[in-house]
């Protein structure tokens, strides 16, 4: 029943978000029907669109679970953007210079990418653990630092002189991740990561402690969870996931090099996905796919209509606010109605 209600709330609020956006598209003198049709055709319409939607969704899945696992454990990791960029740059650099056979090389690069993401989050973890600095602000600041640092690396020491924009050289062809019918192998890695994370959070002792920390921090502390080392662990783990996102973006994406702006908005999108998914790993997966449809469809939308693809950023935010707003309003007011009904019962009994 509870699950049914949640799905209903999500569907109703997503539909209302689409209606709000339709009105805004209409105001800008474009046709909402054509826009949404293009969104559908290019997001889901054919196997080609569908497989590229899944590819688009891959980094979102990683940043999404990263945010979801952190929030569910009461740790505010907003540093997905920076962790992703650090994972991406190290993969892009090593992908040029590393000499290993294809499959081993790919695995090594993926793991190193993830570890560098974890290390970047580890800075915030150290600051939190030893200097009591709020991870919420430190992860944010690390985003900006990573952004400038990676652009520096791509502009000066590792610049591809033939490129028109600041970019590193193309990684070795043997390290490109294989496609299966247009669907990149990176997507399967993402699905595998979802399953592992779900198992880890639901079935292991650590996962249980994480969830308790998110549920009630002080209770978890009194109950004997080693809150401090768990916070560190959560930051490292979620940093690792974001680093993977960056690494796979280089190995499995389309560009195979680090370019300025490659991180796009994946970090914040992941945070938003985790929020509307209520920090559940499985829901995060489905919302990532949904956002993937929007993102992939956006390119078609720009192609077919005069609505620029940036509109999708706005639309995502409307969806987030609609879902979250409806959910909490429904929760709050049903609780209120229930208590009023109870009150009425008590009053009428006394009469």
């Amino acid at each position: 029943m509870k699950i049914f209600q949640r799905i209903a709330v999500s569907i109703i609020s997503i539909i209302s978000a689409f209606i709000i956006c339709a009105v805004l598209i209409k105001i800008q003198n474009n046709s909402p029907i054509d826009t949404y049709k293009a969104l559908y055709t290019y997001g889901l319409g054919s196997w080609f669109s569908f497989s590229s939607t899944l590819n688009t969704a891959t980094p979102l899945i990683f940043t999404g679970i990263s945010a979801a696992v952190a929030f569910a454990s009461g740790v505010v990791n907003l540093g997905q953007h920076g962790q992703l960029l650090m994972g991406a740059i190290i993969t892009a650099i090593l992908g040029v210079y590393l000499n290993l056979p294809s499959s081993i090389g790919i695995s090594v690069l993926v793991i190193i990418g993830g570890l560098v993401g974890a290390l970047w989050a580890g800075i915030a973890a150290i600051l939190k653990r030893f200097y009591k600095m709020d991870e919420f602000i430190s992860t944010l600041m690390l985003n900006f630092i990573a952004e400038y640092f990676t652009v520096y690396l791509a502009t000066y020491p590792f610049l591809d002189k033939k490129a028109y924009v600041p970019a590193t050289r193309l990684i070795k062809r043997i390290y490109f991740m294989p496609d299966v019918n247009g669907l990149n192998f990176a997507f399967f890695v993402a699905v595998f990561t979802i399953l592992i994370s779900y198992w880890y959070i639901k079935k292991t002792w650590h996962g249980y402690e994480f969830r308790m920390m998110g549920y009630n921090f002080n209770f978890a502390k009194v109950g004997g969870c080693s809150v401090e080392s768990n916070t560190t662990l959560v930051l490292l783990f979620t940093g690792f996931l974001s680093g993977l996102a960056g690494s796979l973006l280089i190995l499995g994406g389309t560009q195979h090099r680090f370019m300025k702006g490659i991180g796009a908005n994946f970090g914040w999108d992941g945070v938003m996905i985790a929020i509307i998914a209520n920090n559940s790993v499985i829901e995060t997966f489905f919302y990532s796919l949904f956002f993937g449809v929007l993102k992939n469809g956006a390119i078609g939308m720009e192609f077919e209509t005069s609505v620029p693809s940036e509109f999708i950023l706005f639309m995502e935010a409307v969806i987030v606010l609609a879902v979250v707003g409806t959910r909490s309003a429904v929760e709050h007011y049903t609780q209120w109605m229930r208590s009023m009904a109870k009150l009425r019962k008590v009053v009428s009994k006394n009469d």
Partner: protein
Amino acid sequence: MTELVLHMFRATLSSATPIMLAALGGMFTYYANIFNIAMEGMMLTGAFFAVYGSYFFGSWVIGIVFALLSGLFMAGLFAFFAIYLRCDEFITGIGINMLALGWTTYALRSTFKVKGALISPKIVPLPKWNIPFLDRLGSVGNIFSGHPFLLYLAFISVFILEILIFNSKFGLHLRATGEDPETSRSAGINPIKVKLVATVLCGLLSALSGVYLSLGYVTLFSENMSNGRGWISLAIIILVKGRPLAILGLSLIFGLFESVGLILQHYKLAPQFAAMVPYIATLFVLYFYGKEKRKQG
């Protein structure tokens, strides 16, 4: 060398202003015990609509009016979700920031047909004020004179707000609501109303900070031009526990870091490292604050 130092001090005042205006706005919500992280978004929409008004109506006054209206709208939106629909304030804030980023990027494309940044001679900047007496003092006077008037307004408002918060009935109500909404309700204060007023004031001041960014600091609008200043403002508010005078001090320190970063660009340092300075500075300030806190126990 002296010229460089003077230039640096002048740039410090200028860089401190947007951070300070947003932090003063966030101060109201801080005292009302609202965890408001939407300053970044409010700043960005303020900056956009200031340019919008200034571009289409050829007047910076209309630009400010547009920006204030957008600030009012964003504050209304925040209040609607966080206060009336009882959403988590943190989540609402992230949603609103994303909304602002999405909307301004989209509108830049669809209204002005440009990508990245809008630079145009049609954007009328804020007028610069020469302060009498000071402008005759030569180079030292030059630090203080000839800034856009919003800068002076920001510095004066620090003192007004200090009095407003600690010596007025409104300030008392505000702080009481933040401390304990239920008790203040029993004392005849409407906590919802006070929170609403605090949010609206935050929206207006953050929007003004955006105006300073796009019409005062430079004369253009670029995607995501607030670039984390709203977050730095939030860090400042948390560090100084909201006190306006302390906000002034810390904003000046951040302004100094930013202008040092700008000056470093003239030397053989990559511009990216210079741009990192304010964010690294934030981490350092947080570090020293944490150290201080541990000393106190």
